[in-house]
């Protein structure tokens, strides 16, 4: 039965109380461990399609008569369009339409960051569109930009109000401590750089709009576009069959979409708008830089008595304040916690969610300072983490739906014990060490989400839902879930996704929620179809329905009989079995989180500051694993992306003008395959008995969370040097080495700190 409930909804650490339509989830979970299909390695169903270039991405869409749009963007961090003359551009070869400042939402003459869109053109070819941009005659009035986050906080220039949190008595916690460590940490601005840049093709059909777009949220985008354009929601159709990644940057609407829709309307033609790599590196969204001051205090026995942090997030001109304090509030059972978070509004491009926003930055400082505290107390870092284990939600005492972090710690022990051996492999140049960091993050998903399953006379199942596959292998996981429930081999299940006109509502691919939101709906739809098959089988074979089940493509009777599924589906002719399923509610009164630990083994060249990561062990608890092969691939991807922000990636802005200097991929350095260490992935794979009919949580974000801190702790283990800023460049390592050297020379001063 469908119900309306008042419930807490979480996406990437943002909570809101909302009315939610939920349906009962009456199915029992499958037993733990691998089934016939679920829990077993499944190569991607669309792998060959992608490898052969047959998969159609948004960038492959070429519609008849299609025009190309290009946006005129501000070259200044802050400027006003004093005057603009579009006549020459409008008359240029191939140009069909020009949009001036103020004619489309998000395109105006008050440029507040570099790359701010002030006008746009649509032309026959992309080259003609860009050539026409140069003919737009603009008189800019340059204004003084605000670029420093601390200065912005002082001046009260904030994207949202400062967020404060306190529990217990922080000052008393500090007073009761035998050891107090204070430290400052920084993190850099990072660009998502998905393989596929932001892009779309908009086409009007009468009063309806078709949008081909690279998006993480087909339905959210449909609703946002409908609202922005003043259309009924179903007049907007959003299509995203394949996409080349998003990492959070493609959760919602962007002005490039509204520009394409407007130009398509004016010209009566389909209009394509695709950001170049340079545009992507400026306005594609970013993980905001942070400046953090954190304090950790404990008694001599290791009990944490106080955790405190002040976090300043350089958000740019917009975005939202991510939960940088989340790890500090949630990871440990500390009674006294106090956090303050500022979201500085600057004349820089706005941030966007980026794979565990806030938690990547907050875990970096918390897990580094905790290791310093362990050193000061003379307590083993792994032991310190176990000593302060949170058995219930540290914020409100709610029980966890499931938590196997202690099991992760237990599995970490044999790796952790190797640290003496790792250190012993040091030589004159290369100092080796091992470090660890814990992971905590959301990832429980939630309702609503729906799926349909269609079974025809060919005995094959079709899963239909209007979800997107951000690139994580979602299609394959959904097929596995349906196959398991229908007792079919995987190659007899198709999955149709990616079109809001062809399937029911599906959730966002963000906040590690795709699998835990969509998987239970798919299973529920498959179960509905299976039930109908068994009803028919009971009639046809004159058995009691409760004795029948589906397995291995057969209908199996508990009393011994067995018939190929085809004996029922073969009778259907044009008849179809239609199953319908919905995602049930989250467990009431419980906190759903993901957990884990990573250990990093590094070698540090003390003469040049080079750090080589030789091995990363990743142990995560995300409930039941649907596709172990896909899950390992996610873990590897998360760690590799983390290596980027740990060592080489940084958006650099000119401090005088606020212009982004790292617009190209030679300057913005993503990790390459040569930077990838041995990665050992160990998933606890214990279903969360309280969470849905699957017991599965999401894995998209957890693996990127603790890597940088584990590596920093390994560098300290190897050399005694405290690196405190991301990325850990050569200069940062050398600085920290010199500081450690200095500390050794002045032991008294170090003791006093």
């Amino acid at each position, binding site marked *: 039965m469908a119900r309306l409930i008042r419930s807490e909804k979480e996406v990437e650490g943002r909570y809101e109380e909302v009315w939610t339509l939920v349906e009962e989830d009456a199915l029992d979970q499958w037993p733990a461990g691998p089934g016939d299909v679920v829990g077993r390695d499944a190569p991607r169903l669309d792998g060959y399609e992608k490898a052969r270039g047959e998969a159609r991405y948004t960038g492959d869409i070429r519609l008849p008569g299609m025009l190309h749009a290009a946006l005129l963007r501000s070259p200044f961090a802050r400027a006003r369009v004093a005057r603009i003359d579009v006549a020459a551009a409008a008359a240029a070869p191939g140009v069909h339409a020009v949009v001036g400042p103020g004619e489309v939402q998000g395109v105006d003459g008050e440029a507040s960051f570099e790359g701010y869109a002030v006008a746009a053109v649509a032309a026959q070819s992309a080259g003609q569109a860009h050539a026409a941009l140069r003919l737009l005659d603009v008189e800019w009035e340059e204004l003084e930009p605000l670029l420093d986050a601390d200065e912005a906080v002082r001046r009260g220039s904030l994207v949202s109000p400062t967020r404060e949190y306190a529990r217990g008595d922080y000052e008393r916690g500090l007073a009761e401590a035998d050891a107090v460590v204070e430290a400052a940490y920084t993190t850099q601005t990072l660009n998502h750089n998905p393989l596929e840049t932001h892009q779309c093709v908009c086409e009007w059909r009468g009063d309806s709009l078709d949008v081909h777009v690279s998006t993480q949220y087909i339905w959210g985008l449909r609703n946002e576009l409908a609202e922005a354009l003043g259309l009924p929601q179903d007049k907007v159709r959003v299509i995203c069959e394949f996409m080349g990644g998003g990492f959070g940057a493609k959760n919602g609407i962007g002005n490039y979409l509204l520009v394409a829709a407007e130009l398509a309307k004016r010209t009566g033609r389909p209009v394509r708008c695709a950001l170049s790599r340079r545009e992507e590196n400026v306005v594609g969204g970013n993980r905001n830089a942070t400046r953090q001051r954190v304090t950790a205090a404990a008694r001599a026995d290791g009990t944490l008595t106080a955790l405190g942090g002040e976090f300043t997030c350089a958000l740019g001109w917009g975005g939202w304040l991510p939960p940088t304090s989340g790890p500090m509030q949630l990871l440990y059972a500390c009674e006294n916690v106090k956090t303050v978070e500022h979201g500085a509004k600057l004349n820089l491009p706005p941030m966007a969610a980026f794979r565990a926003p806030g938690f990547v930055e907050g875990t970096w400082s918390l897990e580094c300072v905790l290791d310093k505290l362990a050193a000061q107390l003379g307590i083993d870092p792994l032991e310190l983490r176990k000593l302060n284990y949170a058995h219930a939600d540290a914020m409100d005492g709610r029980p966890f739906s499931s938590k196997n972090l202690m099991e992760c710690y237990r599995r970490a022990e044999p790796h952790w014990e190797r640290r003496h051996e790792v250190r012993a492999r040091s030589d004159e140049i290369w100092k080796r060490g091992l470090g660890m960091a814990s992971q905590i993050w959301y990832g429980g998903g939630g309702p609503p989400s729906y799926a349909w399953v269609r079974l025809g006379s060919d005995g094959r199942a079709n899963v239909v839902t209007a979800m997107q596959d951000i690139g994580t292998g979602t299609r394959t996981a959904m097929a596995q879930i349906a196959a398991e429930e229908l007792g079919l081999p995987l190659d007899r299940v198709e999955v149709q996704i990616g079109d809001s006109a062809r399937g029911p509502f599906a959730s966002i691919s963000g906040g590690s929620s795709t699998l835990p939101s969509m998987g239970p709906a798919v299973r529920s739809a498959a179960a509905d179809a299976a039930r109908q098959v068994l009803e028919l089988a009971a009639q046809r074979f004159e058995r009691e329905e409760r004795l029948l089940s589906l397995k291995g493509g057969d209908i199996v009777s508990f009393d011994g009989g067995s018939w190929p599924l085809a004996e029922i589906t073969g009778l259907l002719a044009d008849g179809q079995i239609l199953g319908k399923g919905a995602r049930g509610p989250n467990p009431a009164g419980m906190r759903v989180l993901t957990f884990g630990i990573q250990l990093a083994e590094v070698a540090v060249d003390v003469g040049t500051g080079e750090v080589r990561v030789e091995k990363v062990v990743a142990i995560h608890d995300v409930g039941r694993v649907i596709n172990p092969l896909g899950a390992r691939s996610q873990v590897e991807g998360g760690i590799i992306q983390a290596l980027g922000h740990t060592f080489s990636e940084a958006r650099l802005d000119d401090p*005088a003008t606020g212009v982004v200097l790292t617009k190209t991929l030679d300057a913005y350095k993503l990790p390459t395959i040569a930077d990838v260490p041995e990665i050992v992935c160990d998933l606890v794979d214990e279903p969360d008995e309280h969470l849905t009919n699957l017991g599965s949580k999401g894995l998209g974000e957890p693996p990127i969370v603790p890597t940088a801190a584990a590596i920093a702790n390994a560098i300290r283990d190897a050399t005694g040097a405290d690196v405190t800023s991301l990325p850990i460049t050569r200069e940062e390592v050398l600085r920290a080495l010199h500081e450690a050297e200095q500390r050794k020379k002045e032991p008294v001063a170090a003791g006093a700190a």
Partner: protein
Amino acid sequence: MRLERPSSREEAVAALGDGAVALAGGTELVPLLHEGIVAAETLVDVSAAVPRGIAGRVIGAGTTLAELEGSDAIPEALREACRLAASPQLRNMGTIGGNLLQATRCWYWRLRFPCRLHGGETCHAREGQHREHAFLANDFCASAHPSDPAAALLALGARIRTDRRELDLAELYRLPTEDDRSTTTLEPGELIVELELPEVQSSAYLKAMDRQRWAFALVGVAVARAGGETRIALAGAAPVPWLLGSAADLDAATPLPGTAFKVEIARTLVSRALATLQ
């Protein structure tokens, strides 16, 4: 834009007058054309005009970095410099002649800030973001020269032959000044044809970069020993490939706040590279 494909050196040299630009592997020129830093009505494909291949100690300027990297006839410093440069795809296209003329990666210059190298009044990097910039001869312009092979060839004491003269590689480069902002002594339309390497006993190239592969040098150090003489050259250190008189010359470095670490790395790499020489 026009592309000419002359079949002889004479035709190529003739075609190169009047603002035409020579195109070899295109790995540097094509991005500069895209960025609007180089403007050209005519490109002259010089692949038929410039020799490609290695004959004894003579290297055709059209030889690719990949070919140098793979040849036993090439001294270790140059092979390693090629191996550590760019990516395999770029090394398969990029020629050694073109590589010697590589422009700086200074982001201000690449983004066409009106900097001194572009004829302007300021070096934006000195006050701005400059961690990848020069720590030697950086007073007028703090850009760093990115070529690994150029540093190796400097240490190896290479000479080059153009369509009109022969010179030491060191003479190909000049520091930009108020009066002349160019970083090479090449005349308009002048074409590098060949390189010649003297005999060396031993050589090495070490490179520090931000990731394991496909990054420009934070510091590249080439060393070579010939007869009683040892030569040291640096990449990523000065606006041009830099010949260092001795390791002690690093004491006279003039780092910016953000490039002091490069001096330290250079010291380490110079001493390590010298230690490998036989």
